[in-house]
Each structure stands twice: as structure tokens, then as C-alpha cells.
């Protein structure tokens, strides 16, 4: 964070040289660019520099590493293997494809259900008078703002087969206790439920903000034309809400692909590979097996997946003229 101090000087100098010009012209037109000299460079420079250093470096380093075979801690250094790691990942690693399926199922189920539940909750809250909304929203957002690791702890507690609350409910219903996180059939769903609990409030508040910002006119016009509640929702609310939905889903998608904490605390990817999302799979290759070259290739593939999917949404957003 060193570049701060020297920055103070240049803008002053630049401004002095610019100043007479400004003073000489009549009043500056308010929408005209106010400076012709790249003063912005001084303001933007440090951030761009830091980001370049910390993002371009890892990307380039990672790319180089992904073309080598290197096990950290082993005596042998980097060994050039070309695209072999990538070929392995895509062609010869069945676990990778299992992990891709787990990840897509996880992200799809979590984000999809969060959208539906969030929308439903937002529509409900939107019917309430404004004033009291504050308290409800504050209470509701708690799961989202909680430390994700603590979310994991909470749900481990609830899922605990011996003393967890969920099995208590199940036993009251006369059903046998479940090993929620340890059973191949339920583990992924159990982690998804925790994710849904954590993030549905976020979706709901985003949707609610979108609903509250809607113009009234179309609804009044619709009412005059005799639109039913469902028609008003389908043909007025939903189209107007589309940009909001896209923003919410894009943000959730980017974050859902990163999910690591929840899996780490709840299941460690198990049982078998049933909850082994790509983040966790990559982590294991890098920091459990120390196959750094292979892990770097994996991380590149993960990055590619996220970028491609996000791009689809960003394009759609641009189409709706939302500035992101």
C-alpha cells in the first residue's frame, strides 16, 4: 500500500497547470469532461497497480504452473508437461466430472430455489405497510450476514444424528432418525438447505427493493383494463423485475461457485464425493496432495466455467441496460 504518499504531489502540479485554462473560459459546461489531463491516472493508478499485481500475477503464475508438473515439498522442481494437466482434467479424471456434476447440481438447486423462495417472500413483504418493514428485513437478513463458518456450525448442530433438532422432529413424526450429512442420499441436499437458509434472505431483500422501485402507472392501467392478480404479476411485475432478478442471480451464481466454507465445515466433500464441489476438489489437490500443477489446471477450468456462465448473465443485463 506504499504508493499513497507520492500521490499527493502530482495532482497539485497538474491542477496548477490546468487552472488558468479553467479560469479563462466562462463557466464550465456541467456535463463536459472537467479535466483534459489524465489526473484520473493518479487517483486510479494505485488501485489499478495493486489489482494488476495481485490478479495478473496469480493468473499468469497459475497458467505457467498449470503447464508443469510440480508436487510441493518434493525434491524435483517444475517439470514441463505442456497441456497434459488440462488433458488429464478434461479427459482422464472421472472424479473431476463427478465434481462438475455435484457443483452444477449444488449451484442450480441452491440458486434456483433461493430465487423462487426469495421472490415469494418479497411479494409477501411487499404487501405489508412500509413502516414496519424495517424490523422484519433486519431480522431476516441475519443468516446472510452471519459468518459462513458459523452457518456451518449451526447446521451441523441441527443435523447432528444423536442430539440434533432435526432428528427430534423426525422422531416425533414417527420416522427413523437420519444420518443427514453422512448419507449419500441426503448429504448434498442437506448442504444445499444450509445454503438456501443462508442466502434466501438476500434474494428476498433484493427482489423487495426491485418491487418497491416499480412505477405505479402500469399497475393502475392494468387494473383499469381488468387484469387479474396473476395477469398483473405475469405481464407487468415479472417483466419489470427481470433486471433485478438477473442481478440477484448473477451475484448468487458467482458466489455459489465459490462455496467452500459450508462444505468444509459440514461434510468435507463426503460421503464419497457426494458433496465435493469444484472449489473443494481443487483445494484437496493443491493443499492435501500438493499436486500444485494439477490443482492450477483445475482452478483454471473452474475459472473458465464461472466466467462463461457469468458472461451470459452480464450480456443479458446489458441487454436490459442495467449498469453493472
Amino acid at each position, binding site marked *: 500500500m506504499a504508493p499513497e504518499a507520492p500521490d499527493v504531489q502530482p495532482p*497539485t502540479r497538474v491542477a496548477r497547470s490546468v487552472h488558468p485554462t479553467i479560469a479563462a473560459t466562462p463557466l464550465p459546461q456541467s456535463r463536459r469532461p472537467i479535466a483534459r489531463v489524465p489526473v484520473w491516472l493518479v487517483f486510479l493508478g494505485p488501485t489499478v497497480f495493486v*489489482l494488476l499485481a495481485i490478479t495478473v500475477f496469480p493468473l499468469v503464475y*497459475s497458467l505457467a*504452473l498449470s503447464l508443469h508438473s510440480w508436487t510441493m515439498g518434493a525434491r524435483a522442481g517444475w517439470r514441463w508437461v505442456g497441456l497434459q494437466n488440462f488433458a488429464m482434467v478434461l479427459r482422464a479424471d472421472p472424479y473431476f466430472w463427478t465434481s462438475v456434476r455435484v457443483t452444477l447440481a449444488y449451484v442450480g438447486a441452491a440458486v434456483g430455489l433461493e430465487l423462487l423462495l426469495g421472490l415469494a417472500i418479497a411479494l409477501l413483504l411487499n404487501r405489508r405497510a412500509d413502516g414496519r418493514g424495517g424490523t422484519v428485513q433486519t431480522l431476516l437478513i441475519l443468516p446472510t450476514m452471519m459468518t459462513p*463458518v458459523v452457518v456451518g456450525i449451526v447446521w451441523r448442530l441441527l443435523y447432528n444424528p*444423536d442430539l440434533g433438532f432435526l432428528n427430534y422432529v423426525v422422531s416425533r413424526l414417527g420416522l427413523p432418525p437420519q444420518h443427514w450429512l453422512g448419507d449419500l442420499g441426503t448429504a448434498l441436499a442437506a448442504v444445499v438447505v444450509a445454503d438456501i437458509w443462508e442466502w434466501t434472505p438476500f434474494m428476498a431483500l433484493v427482489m423487495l*427493493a426491485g418491487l418497491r422501485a416499480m412505477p405505479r402507472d402500469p399497475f393502475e392501467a392494468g387494473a383499469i383494463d381488468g387484469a387479474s392478480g396473476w395477469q398483473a404479476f405475469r405481464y407487468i411485475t415479472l417483466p419489470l423485475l427481470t433486471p433485478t432478478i438477473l442481478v440477484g442471480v448473477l451475484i448468487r451464481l458467482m458466489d455459489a*461457485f465459490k462455496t467452500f466454507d459450508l462444505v468444509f465445515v459440514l461434510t468435507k466433500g463426503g460421503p464419497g464425493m457426494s458433496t465435493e464441489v469444484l472449489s473443494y476438489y481443487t483445494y484437496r489437490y493443491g493443499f492435501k496432495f500438493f499436486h500444485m500443477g494439477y490443482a492450477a489446471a483445475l482452478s483454471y477450468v473452474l475459472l473458465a466455467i464461472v466466467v462463461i456462465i457469468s458472461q451470459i448473465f452480464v450480456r443479458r443485463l446489458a441487454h436490459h441496460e442495467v*449498469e453493472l
Partner: protein
Amino acid sequence: MRRHRKTVDLFVEIATGAIVLLFLFPVLYLILTSLKTQVDAFQYPPVWIFRPTFSNYREVFDLYPFGHFLVNSLIVASASTVAAVALGAMAAYALARFSFRRSKDVAFWILSIRMTPPVAAIIPIFILMRMLGLLDSWASLVIAYSTMNLPFATWLLRGFFSEIPRELDESALVDGCSWFSAFRRIALPLAAPGLVVTAIFVFIFSWNEFLFALILTATKAQTLPVAVTGFIRETGIMWGHMAAAGVIIMTPMVMFSLAVQRYMVRGLTMGAIK
């Protein structure tokens, strides 16, 4: 018609109450567990009425170096926040005020950095920190968190700066202020609420971060979220301790999110939705 209205309102209120309860219940369950003795915690079916005890909270500090981890978390989160907000404010001001070619591209680049899954960046950063001898130090986490949050801070602040009327800093320039003092004396004070909101968000994100803390630190600089997962292995699971630690970790974040409640959606969507 009016009766119908009232019934609907009542239904809406009841449904809202039920939803809030559903989302709060797990948290309440954690808090209850943290107040139970080990004996009460192992009662099955769960007991709802018991003598609350704070012994779990005391023991978390007595039996583990919890205070040490707490200090680590505080220092790392504060330092990252200051760095990210200071750099972010300058960049945001530039993005909001000066017209230059490709400003859209810079903005998009900043956003796309946020898309990167941390696990994709952690390998080179780990190797870099190892080469610099910074593993298991505050510095490694501060560097990682402040840069990780810099795009977010810049983006959010850009929104706040562009809400300040341009005429204000323009007239300061006409009156003979330099760009930098127009920024410092006019724009910064006017964007103060935005700065506070951004700082709180960055603090929350840094405090909550797990993956980098897990990989870059061992014991010396370990932060709370990683430390608490260590409880699982060391002791079997002492549920009372885990719950108490969880409550301690989440409480400051809950307080902070109350403080930024009005800006919650804006912050979490990076200003896309206000």
C-alpha cells in the same frame, strides 16, 4: 370488501411472522445451546427450559487461546478495511468524476475480478507468500483481504461519489482548489456515509473470510473462523464451546449489519440495486 382486506392483511402478518421465525430459529437454537451445560446440551429430546450458564463462554477463553484469535481477527479485518477503503475511494472518485477513454472497461475489469473463485487465486498467492516468508503472518491476510475487497470497495464507492453533484467540486476548482484538495475537502466529507457503509461491508467480509485464512495461516495469525473449525478436531465436538464460539464470532457482524441495514441491498449487490 373491507373485511376481505382485513383477512388478507392478517394472513400476510401471520405468514411474515412464520417466515421470520423459520429463519431465526437456527440462530436461536445456537444461542440456546451456547447457554447449556454439557449435560443439558446432551439431553434428548432437547430441553427448552434450563438454567442458563455462561460457563461455555468463559471456558472458550480459558481452555483455548480464543482471545489470541480474536485479536488476530480484529487486527486483520481493521487493517484490510483501512487499506481497501483508502485506495478504493481514490479509484472510485476517478471513475465517478473524470471522463477518460475505456473507463467502462476498467469498471468491468474491476467487477470481473470479483467473479474469480478464491480457490483459483490461492495457489499462486500461497506460493508467493511462502517465498516472501509471510506465511502465518497478519501481513499475508491483510494483503489478501484488502486486495480481494478493493474491487468491491471501489465499485460501491463509485456509486456514492457519482451521487454528489459535480457542480460542487467544479466550483471548488474554480475557486482555486487543487484536484486533490477538492477530493479531500469536498468529495470525501460528502461521501462520508458511503465511506462508513463501505468500510463496514469490507470489515464484515474480511472477518468472515475462511479459505485464505485456512491456507495462509497456521497458529500465530489464525483468525476466528479457522480457529473455531479447529475445535471440531481437538475435542471431539464440545457443542457448548462450539456454540459459544459461534455466537461470539457472529455477534459483531450482526451489530454491524444492523448499522448498515438501510444500505444492505445496495452493498450486497455492489450498488447495482439501490
